[in-house]
């Protein structure tokens, strides 16, 4: 099958185990983003895929061809992989066109020139073909780097925080352009980013790796945001409100009312609620007082307090044009779509739900019979 397929991949540097049983399948034309804490092994995974590092355990397959196992190592240049790494800058002594045609060495000269100009056209840099890298802005250099990576029509494109050097407004533009070029090329892409919003924007699928080097969750951006499986995944997207409690009859009590969970009764849990999950109203919920309310335009977050002077402070996303000053009373209530329940055990292994424990126990009993 065309695309990238990795399974059973584990990696350690001496005693430092960074990747643990990683599995990944990216069909041609799809873009998968890796998100995870610093040092969890994201760049290592890209280097292993590119062939810059030898596989210790596991298998890497590109377009149906096994390129790496502990016994097999296909050289980077024979993997047909395009790279765009943080520190993988353009060659300063080559012109923009020469940079892009660098990977086309074996190609007929006319074809190579045509391909180079086509790629420069796709990233909107035709006019700068004869410039040198130092004459371009960061964003322009990034466009050229993308053209260079895609020129040889790689089977796989690996991007390691490709936009991290750009300022916010440039980043947004380049992201959009890059996505367009990638979708047009039909290449399978694995991209690492630190920025969860960037992952949401770019990815067909997001894979989250935890600090233990294991995959915590994989899914569509929508799924990762609305159905996080782990505390770590939920917290990726910014500030959260947190309540603690114990599961009783499949529910946890919070100051904003009960929240349902499938965790077993008696488990100590935390309820994490996104700011947009606390609804600010005038009447109809729990009484609250405003501590601060700053308009940011796209993302208005207010701080409120419930339960009196020594009560709990909450972050609230202010919807529409809720003008605090014009309300007689302020109340807050819960939107359950944004409330997630996790065991209090830190990142990593969640306590299995009732259903899981039952299923596994039943099978074991069956076998024992």
């Amino acid at each position: 099958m065309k695309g990238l397929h990795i399974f059973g991949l584990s990696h350690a540097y001496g005693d430092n185990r960074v990747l643990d049983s990683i599995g990944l399948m990216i069909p041609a034309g799809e873009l998968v983003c890796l998100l995870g804490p610093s040092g969890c092994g994201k760049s290592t995974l890209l280097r292993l895929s590119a062939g810059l590092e030898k596989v210790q355990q596991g298998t890497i397959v590109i377009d149906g061809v096994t390129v790496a196992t502990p016994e097999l190592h296909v050289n980077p240049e024979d993997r047909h992989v395009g790279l765009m790494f943080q520190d993988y800058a353009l060659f300063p002594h080559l012109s923009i066109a020469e940079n892009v045609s660098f990977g086309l060495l074996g190609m007929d000269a006319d074809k190579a020139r045509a391909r180079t100009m086509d790629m420069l056209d796709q990233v909107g840099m035709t006019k700068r073909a004869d410039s040198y890298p130092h004459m371009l802005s960061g964003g322009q250099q990034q466009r050229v780097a993308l053209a260079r990576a895609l020129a040889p029509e790689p089977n796989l494109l690996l991007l390691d925080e490709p936009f991290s050097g750009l300022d916010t407004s440039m980043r947004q533009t380049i992201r959009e352009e890059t996505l367009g070029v990638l979708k047009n090329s039909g290449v399978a892409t694995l991209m690492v980013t630190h920025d969860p919003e960037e992952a949401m924007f770019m990815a067909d699928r997001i894979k989250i790796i935890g600090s233990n080097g294991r995959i915590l969750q994989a899914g569509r951006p929508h799924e990762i945001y609305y159905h996080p499986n782990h505390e770590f995944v939920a917290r990726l997207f910014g500030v959260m409100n947190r309540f603690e409690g114990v599961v009783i009859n499949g529910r946890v009590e919070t100051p904003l009312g009960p929240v349902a969970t499938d965790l077993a009764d008696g488990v100590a849990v935390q309820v994490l609620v996104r700011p947009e999950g606390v609804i600010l109203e005038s009447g109809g919920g729990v009484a609250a007082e405003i501590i601060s309310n700053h308009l940011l335009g796209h993302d208005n977050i207010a701080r409120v307090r419930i339960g009196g002077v020594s009560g709990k402070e909450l972050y609230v996303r202010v919807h529409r044009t809720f003008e605090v000053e014009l309300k007689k009373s302020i109340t807050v209530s819960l939107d359950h779509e944004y409330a997630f329940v996790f065991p209090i055990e830190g990142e990593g292994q969640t306590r299995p739900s009732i259903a899981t424990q039952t299923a596994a126990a039943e099978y074991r009993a069956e076998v024992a019979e």
Partner: protein
Amino acid sequence: MVEFSETFELDCGELDQDHRRLIEMLNEIVAMLDDGKTGDCKSKVQEFVNFSKAHFRREERFLAKAGYPGLQEHCAHHIRLNKKMDHILEFADMAGVNEKARESLKKELVFFLMDDVITTDLDFKSFVEDKRP
């Protein structure tokens, strides 16, 4: 078109056969969507979901019998996939009227089957190999 190449194999007859069957069903669904037969695809997607669930039970039984230490974790993984299947069915519901739903349905089916189901199963491939006499 998704192909079941050798690298997806667990070398475990019954389970590989299930995976192959699921890939066939996936390809049939994608072909239906591409031919604009969105009306028929809903029942095919339901069939795919039912077969996936039955397959999970077969696989869990197999792993329990083999004494696989990661059984509980793998059961938990299968349970989490139920939510994904609910979404897939929702996309299938909308496939007739919404182009975006058709796209998402195709995409999700491929990732679900090739990544969540088959690639994750390869975690126990070496365990099964070592068990073999």
